[in-house]
Each structure stands twice: as structure tokens, then as C-alpha cells.
């Protein structure tokens, strides 16, 4: 992996070099064409005229879609120092070095850089900076000529390209493997074991089980995961002959959940125990749904409550009511703001990705399994990068050695947005 990461930057540097050479040559060629004139246009000579800004440095914005030129200059001596009366600068532009300069834009004092995004590709421009001080002003010497152009490849993002390629490779690789029927290992998930335990207890007590697959629709992956887990739970429940209750808040979830539960009862050999009433629709309205669940819980006192799916503010109302009736509660969601409430109030909580892992583990679905494995590879990559990066950063601080600093800088650059 590390080898691959290093291979590309060389390529990047090579093309960067070419671009620079072409630029330097072209800029040099163009700037020698007209005669260089060193004329300052001083409007009103006198003590109030500020010192001129430095000759502007100009270059085409690299790796862009064209139409953009970066202009930078050294501030007038009277900006921040000297008479300190410069109020701002005008950026002037012309296609001829000797005149016809037009104001492109203005900036306030203290600013020494401007990106001109109104340039035409292929036209050569000259820039001057005008320092303003009240009614007085002074222009800098004109810049060299500059031409904006667009590029085919953004060398600065070579590292991102490599990282994207590695991650994509692993994801696709594992999905293909899973599709071919290759067994992919997934670790034991503690929350899942709690599910069986809860079903057992409900059977012993002769009470029902409440299952809530979240309040979002089927287009949310968390809901899908919730329904997958419901499928496996329903199988166990069908075997034990325990009562199951699944109120839902979306009509599409209703259809999917009914189908899943029916299948589970069939495969457990208990189609007789199945009825459409197990899964029923309540309402789309968030608090209306919660009020209903609250009422059901207090009336029926289920022995176990499951909340697996996407939850918002209702998480804590549910968990609280479940707690007050003494039910075993198993929750799972990827909503980061709701997780703390579930952890604090429930017996077991599937945290974020654990919910998806649990669903992939139960469904054995190649897409889900493959993605999970691909993401795991990404975590290895991240951990390795952090490990090496931290190691060399520490060595740099401890030894102060130049070599360590170089390695460390390189690793940091690998993970910079501009390589």
C-alpha cells in the first residue's frame, strides 16, 4: 500500500515540472515582446501621495478551469507603516503594457493578494496596483504579462486520487468475493446475543415483545437494518410461540416488515402463528406515533422492547417509558445525537456501524458484507497512516533530525488536501 502511495507523486511531480517549464517559457517569451517602461503615474505630487506598492507578481492559477490569475504585491510603505494613510488598493488590468488600464477590483488596506477570476483564457494581461490614500493615489510599475489557461489534471489532488482508488478497490474486491459465495468473517456482536436472551425471558414470563424499527422510511439504511434484524428475531419468536408486536410509522415500512415477518414465521415452520396484526401502521406524525407507543407500553407491559432503526428526539421518551415498566431494552441507531440516551437508559445498545454489521451478519447479503469488509480495510489504512505519521512526528520532535522531519512532512502531505 505504501509503495503505491509513493509511486504516484513522482508522476505528479513530473507533470508539474512540465507545466512549470511551459509556463516559464511562455511567460518569458511574452514578457520580452513589449518594451519595459518604468513609468509611475503620480496624480498629485506632494507629501500626501503614498509610497507605491511593489511590482505585482502574476501567475496563472494552477490546476484550474481557466479564467483566473493570481496577483500579489508587496504593500505600500505607507500601509501599516510610514504615514500609514493608505486606505486600500485598486487592481488595474490591461492587454497592453503601456496604457488603457482598467480597474478590475478593489481591496482594503493590508491585503496583498487578489485572484482575478474575470480573465479570458489565451489573452495576455498586464497588472498594476494603485495605492489609494484619500484623494491621492499612486500606481505600481506594470507586471509581467500573464495568460490564464485551463488544465487537464489537478496534480495537487494526486494523493486523493490514490487514496480514493485504494478504498474503491477494496470495497469492490470484497463485494465480488462475497457475491462468489466466499465466507467473510464478522466478529461476534454483544448486542445481538442480548436479543436472544430477551426473547427467552419474555417467553418465561409469558409476556409480549415490542419491536420498533425507527421512525424513518425505507430509504434510510438504518430502517432496512432494523427490518433485517426483525426478520431473524421473528424466527426465534415463532419457535418459542411468544407474542410479537410491531407498530410502524410509515406505510412502506409496513409492507416490508409484514413481508419479512411472514417469511420468518414460514421458515420457522409456524405459518399458523402468523397474522397480519403483528405488524400494524400507526401514524406518520412523530409525536403522535410516540404517544401511541407510550400508551401501548404502559398497557401491555411487554417484557422486552427493541428499538432498532433511525430515531430522533423520541429515543429518550421510548427508553424512559420502557425503563419504567421494567422491560429489557435493546436499542440500536446510527443517529449520533440519540446514541447517548439509548446507552444511558437501555440494557444493550448497538452503536452506529454495529447496527449495520449486525444486519449484514444476519442477512449474509453480499453487498452489505462486502462494504463492511471494504470499510474495515479503510480503517486499517487509517490506523497505519496514523501509526507511521505519529511515529515520525515524535521522532522529529525527540531527535530534531532533518531526515525524520522530511519523512514526517511527506506523510502529512499525503493526507493534505493540496499535495
Amino acid at each position: 500500500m505504501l509503495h503505491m502511495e509513493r509511486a504516484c507523486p513522482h508522476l505528479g511531480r513530473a507533470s508539474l515540472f512540465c507545466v512549470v517549464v511551459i509556463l516559464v517559457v511562455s511567460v518569458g517569451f511574452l514578457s520580452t515582446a513589449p518594451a519595459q517602461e518604468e513609468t509611475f503615474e503620480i496624480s498629485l505630487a506632494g507629501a500626501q501621495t503614498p509610497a507605491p506598492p511593489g511590482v505585482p507578481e502574476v501567475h496563472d492559477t494552477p490546476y484550474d478551469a481557466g479564467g483566473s490569475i493570481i496577483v500579489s504585491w508587496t504593500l505600500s510603505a505607507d500601509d501599516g507603516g510610514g504615514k500609514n494613510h493608505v486606505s486600500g488598493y485598486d487592481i488595474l488590468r490591461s492587454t497592453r503594457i503601456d496604457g488603457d488600464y482598467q480597474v478590475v477590483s478593489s481591496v482594503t488596506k493590508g491585503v496583498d493578494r487578489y485572484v482575478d477570476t474575470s480573465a479570458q483564457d489565451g489573452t495576455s494581461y498586464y497588472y498594476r496596483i494603485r495605492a489609494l490614500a484619500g484623494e491621492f493615489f499612486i500606481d505600481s510599475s506594470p507586471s509581467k504579462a500573464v495568460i490564464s489557461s485551463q488544465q487537464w489534471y489537478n496534480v495537487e489532488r494526486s494523493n486523493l486520487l490514490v487514496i480514493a482508488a485504494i478504498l474503491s478497490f477494496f470495497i469492490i474486491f470484497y463485494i465480488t468475493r462475497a457475491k462468489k459465495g466466499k465466507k467473510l468473517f464478522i466478529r461476534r456482536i454483544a448486542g445481538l446475543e442480548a436479543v436472544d436472551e430477551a426473547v427467552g425471558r419474555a417467553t418465561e414470563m409469558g409476556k409480549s415483545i415490542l419491536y420498533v424499527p425507527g421512525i424513518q422510511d425505507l430509504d434510510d439504511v438504518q430502517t432496512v437494518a432494523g427490518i433485517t434484524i426483525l426478520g431473524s428475531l421473528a424466527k426465534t419468536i415463532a419457535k418459542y410461540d411468544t407474542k410479537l408486536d410491531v407498530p410502524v410509522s410509515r406505510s412502506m415500512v409496513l409492507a416490508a416488515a409484514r413481508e419479512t415477518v411472514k417469511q420468518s414465521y414460514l421458515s420457522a415452520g409456524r405459518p399458523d402463528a402468523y397474522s397480519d396484526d403483528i405488524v400494524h401502521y400507526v401514524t406518520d406524525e412523530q409525536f403522535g406515533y410516540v404517544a401511541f407507543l407510550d400508551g401501548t407500553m404502559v398497557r401491555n407491559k411487554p417484557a422486552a422492547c427493541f428499538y432498532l432503526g433511525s430515531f430522533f428526539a423520541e429515543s429518550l421518551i421510548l427508553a424512559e417509558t420502557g425503563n419504567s415498566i421494567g422491560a429489557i431494552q435493546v436499542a440500536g441507531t446510527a443517529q449520533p445525537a440519540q446514541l447517548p440516551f439509548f446507552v444511558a437508559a437501555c440494557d444493550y445498545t448497538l452503536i452506529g456501524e454495529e447496527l449495520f454489521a449486525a444486519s449484514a451478519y444476519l442477512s449474509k447479503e453480499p453487498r452489505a458484507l462486502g462494504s463492511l469488509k471494504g470499510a474495515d480495510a479503510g480503517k486499517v489504512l487509517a490506523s497505519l497512516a496514523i501509526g507511521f505519521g505519529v511515529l515520525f512526528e515524535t521522532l522529529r520532535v525527540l531527535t530534531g533530525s532533518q531526515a525524520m522531519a522530511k519523512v514526517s512532512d511527506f506523510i502529512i502531505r499525503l493526507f493534505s488536501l493540496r499535495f
Partner: protein
Amino acid sequence: MSVVEKLGNVDRRIIFLLIALAVIIPLVFNISFMEHPTPIVQVIFDKIESLPEGSKILLPFDYGPSTAPELEPMATAVTRHCCKKNHKMYIMALWPTGQAQALRVIENVIEGEFPDKVYGTDYVHLGYKAGGYGLINTILADLKKMYTTDAPGTHIDEIPMMSDIQNLRDFAFICNFSAGFPGLKEWVQFAGDPGDIPVAGGTTAVSAPLLYPYYPRQMLGMMGGLKGAAEYEASLVHQYPEYEQVYQRAIAIMGPQAIAHLVIIIFIIIGNITFFIEKKRQKKVG
């Protein structure tokens, strides 16, 4: 029934009443405390303070009435500060409700406290456009592609302060007020990181902890919830003592906030004590 059992079976509505009182009483008696700004908030204040006068600052209002109690004080304080420093304010919204929220701040702060500010040269209200992060992505490349007019319908090229704005890179600073998605996270992902633009902002306390990983490299600073707002107000008062006499909403509200926190903590402690006593007794019985 023992005390423990009684405590365990308190009607929910009594608890509701207690928390309401914990908020109302300090509100009636106007209890408030001193605030000490933390670095993560101070850095936003310092940024706006240190930018040269007339800098272009983008203020996206990405919240609605539901979170206004947390975010409006921040928006008020930051806007006030920008007015004081004579920065040019560009107000926009990613949330449909944000446009109305922005109007409240414009009417109360800019027009109310700084009547000499001129619309079109000192501030502009660009309003809401649909698209969420898609909108940020669009205006990172070309702002006028989406914003062809301002909110009242004036052509964008007829607004003086829009003449040298092409895209988000032309802003010196983006200070966002966000209640969730799309919000500060998307401003970092779609504007700050790809465009290399300093981004900071205020968020609800709910989303604040989730954004800490961006601080300080990808996100300059952050005001988290009412506390963040109160800290910003404290910085403002410290720098501009004339505001000591002006009502500072977040600081005023932090009093009831603190009392309510204490009540919640006491609830958790009582709840856990009864829980442990109960558990012990069950063990003895069992």
C-alpha cells in the same frame, strides 16, 4: 410504601412541573452570572476584530424558529460586531426558515441599532436558495449563477457591494449559524476545505460535539449552544464597554440554564440512589 418506592414511582407530570419551575423562577428573578470566553469562541471574535475594515463577511442563516433561542443570540452578537467593525455583510440562507430568521436580525440589529448602514453597500440580504450542500457547491464556483437577484428582487449586478464578488473565495470569512443539516459541517466540507476559505460559526449544542474534530485546522472556531453565544456576548462587552448597558440575551438566559442543569443532575443522582437501594434490597430478598 417506603420512601424509596415513593421516590421511584413519582408521576412524570410532577417532574415536568419541577423542571418548568427550575426555568421560570430564575427567569422571573433575573438571575445571571459572569461569563468567561473560551478559546474556541474567542478566536471567532478575534478574527472579526482583526479583519481590516470593510472586509467581506458571509453570514449564512441556517436555522429555524425551533432552535432560534440558541442561535439568534449568536447571530445578533456577530452581526452587531460586524456592524461595529464596518464590515460588509452578505446574508444568505440554506434553510427556508433561515430567510425569515435573517430578516429578524436585519430589522433588529442592522436597521435598528445602526440606522446609517446602507442596504447594498454595507449589507445585502441574498435570501434563501434551495439545494443545501448542492447550493454551497454551486456558489463555490460561481455565486451569481444561483443568486441572480437579492431577496427583494433587485438584479445582482445593480447592487454595488456585489460587483467584486464572483464566488465564495472572494469572502474574507464565512460565519455560519446552523441548526443541523445542512449547516456548519457542510460549510466545512463544501466551502472551507475545497476552497481554502476560513469558516467558523455557531451551532446548536446538539451538533457542537460532533464538529469538534474539525477544530482548529478545518474550522476556525465554534460557538456551541447558548453557552457559546453568551461567551461571544461577553467578548463583545469586554471590547466595547458601551454594550454593558445593552440587554445581552444569552448571558441573561444562562442563569436559568445553569439552575436547570443542576436540577437535572440532582434528578439523575436521586434516580440512581433509588436504583441502587432497590437493587441491594432485591439481592437480599433473592
